[in-house]
């Protein structure tokens, strides 16, 4: 991949050995980026991942704990110990696991190592939804109508806030995420029970009863803006993605750019995201997530890490986002400006999951044979191979098929062919479901909302 936006000098190299605190396809992806930058890598694993292929190509490979993620990939002390034993000077958290854990980022900093991501302070600011919303409002990023403070305990004041926003409203846990800890309230009579229930759930699930309230949008799309920032106050946004194809709040297909959004509408929003990053001193890559309805954007949250779907932006922008993230952590200055960012063509990503294509129950077992698509404009990010054992311990994502073509219609056609050429034997996968989805006419037209996939699945399951 070309890197016309390569950063300035290599004289400020802070580290040359990176510990990759993750597993699966993203561990493989980060290792590739490190290798291309001439950096040494340390791969870590749980007992279930001892045979992971990226272990064989890493400079060091160390088992850090049992198969349970809590005792291995989420074990901060075990990861810091592995860094100390192997002489790693930086830790890349990937996505999931500890990637958005501000306490871990702080522990890495206190150990004298470099956390490849934002510093713990800006991560903590953006990790709390109330403080994030406050920071976004200050930077002029459009937010969903609702106060940027936690809901008061006084029921009459809560009622007043809901009236000012206008029904329907949504109650959310301040520390929540991933679709958990939220409740839609269609009318005033249901408000107090909803607040009490969500508060108790938030207390139990996230350790904090803090809630906030927003306007509930009925038919929004999920749109993301990717940013890249150095540690010297320079920042750019790298275009936008549409991640509205979701099942149970989990993204299934992503595309870039988001179809049907005029540059004059999204341009000011991208610029506001850049300004927000500069105001909070953000470093590295990050994603601003928005709901989009009736030509208006509403900020939901910021993901202070690499996203699963980063490849679609890589293929449209021509940038290696993982390499740029590592360079930012090394203290290298961006020499690019917003005018240098030129996104071209259209890209789709399909998440290939080890699961039943009808029931979506996870599928475990050994892959007996595999055939992956190849060709111009086709990329597959994966760690699996024939003989690989899919374990029951982790997320079911086993591969990502990504395509790029000049137009959206051509990219859809390329994905249809790529999916037709993908075969994974020995376990069940969601490939048949993805093939059917890419034949759907509404999806082909574009601009479907975040509820579309659930409705489509309901229609399919009707006799």
């Amino acid at each position, binding site marked *: 991949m070309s890197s016309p936006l390569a950063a300035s000098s290599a004289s400020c190299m802070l580290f040359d050995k990176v510990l990759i605190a993750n597993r699966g396809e993203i561990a493989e992806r980060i290792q590739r980026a490190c290798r291309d930058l001439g950096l040494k890598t340390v791969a870590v694993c749980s*007992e279930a991942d001892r045979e992971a292929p990226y272990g064989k190509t890493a400079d060091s490979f*160390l*088992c*850090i704990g049992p198969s349970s993620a809590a005792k291995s990939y989420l074990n901060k*002390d*075990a990861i810091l*110990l*592995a860094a100390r*034993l*192997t002489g790693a000077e930086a830790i890349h958290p990937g996505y999931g696991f500890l990637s958005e854990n501000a306490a871990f980022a702080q522990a890495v900093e206190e150990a004298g190592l470099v956390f490849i991501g934002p510093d713990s302070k800006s991560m903590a600011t953006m990790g709390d939804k109330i403080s994030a919303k406050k920071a976004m409002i200050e930077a002029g990023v459009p937010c969903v109508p609702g106060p940027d403070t936690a809901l008061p305990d006084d029921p009459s004041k809560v009622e007043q806030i809901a009236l000012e926003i206008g029904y329907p409203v949504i109650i959310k846990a301040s520390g929540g995420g991933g679709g958990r800890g939220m409740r839609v309230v269609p009318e005033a009579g249901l408000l107090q029970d909803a607040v009490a229930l969500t508060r108790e759930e938030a207390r139990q699930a996230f350790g904090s009863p803090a809630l906030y309230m927003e306007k509930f949008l009925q038919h929004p799309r999920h749109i993301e803006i990717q940013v890249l920032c150095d540690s010297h106050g320079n920042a750019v946004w790298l275009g936008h993605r549409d991640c509205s194809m979701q099942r149970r709040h989990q993204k299934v297909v992503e595309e870039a750019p988001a179809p049907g959004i005029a540059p004059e509408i999204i341009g000011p929003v991208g610029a506001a995201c850049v300004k927000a990053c500069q105001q909070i001193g953000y470093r590295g890559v990050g994603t601003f997530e928005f709901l989009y309805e009736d030509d208006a954007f509403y900020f939901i949250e910021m993901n202070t890490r690499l996203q699963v779907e980063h490849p679609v932006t890589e293929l449209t922008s021509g940038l290696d986002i993982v390499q740029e993230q590592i360079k930012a952590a090394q203290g290298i200055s961006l020499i690019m400006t917003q005018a240098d960012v030129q996104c071209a063509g259209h890209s789709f990503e399909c998440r290939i999951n080890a699961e039943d294509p009808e029931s979506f129950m996870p599928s475990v077992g050994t892959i007996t044979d595999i055939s992956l698509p190849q060709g111009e404009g086709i990329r597959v990010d994966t760690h699996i191979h024939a003989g690989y054992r899919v374990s029951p311990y982790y997320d079911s994502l086993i591969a990502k098929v990504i395509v790029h073509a000049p137009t959206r219609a051509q990219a859809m056609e390329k994905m249809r062919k790529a999916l037709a050429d993908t075969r994974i034997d020995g376990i069940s996968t969601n490939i048949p479901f993805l093939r059917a989805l890419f034949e759907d006419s509404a999806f082909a037209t574009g601009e479907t909302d975040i509820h579309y996939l659930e409705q489509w699945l309901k229609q399919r399951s009707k006799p």
Partner: protein
Amino acid sequence: MSTIDFSDPEIIAFLTDALTSAGVDGVEISAASGQLRIVVSADGSTRTSVDTSVATIAIKAPMAGIFRLQRPGSVDIVADLPRPVSATEVLGFLRIGPVLVPLTAGRPGLMTRRLAQPDALVGFGDALFEIEAQQ
């Protein structure tokens, strides 16, 4: 008041020494950040994990560290194998910074293989010795 960092190897080493000299066989400390449990056996060695499911058992590393056959300052002497070992015999050590974790056989038997080289970096669960359990 400052908080003690129980993940600090130097703190763990200090506590282990204090327990040994006081004749206490173990301590468990609970803090907001987690739990620390140190168990000192009669000969002063800490407990290690032992796989007992088969007649030939593997002595595995209880955590990641640098494998040593002897204490620092001693030369690693590779003894001839096979040789009989007692349950409490210290077969080697894991060095983690200033902390030395003794590795005991756990049961009497015949040590048939040594599976890690001295000064090798070993991970959690890596097999270090093989012992044929005494019938």
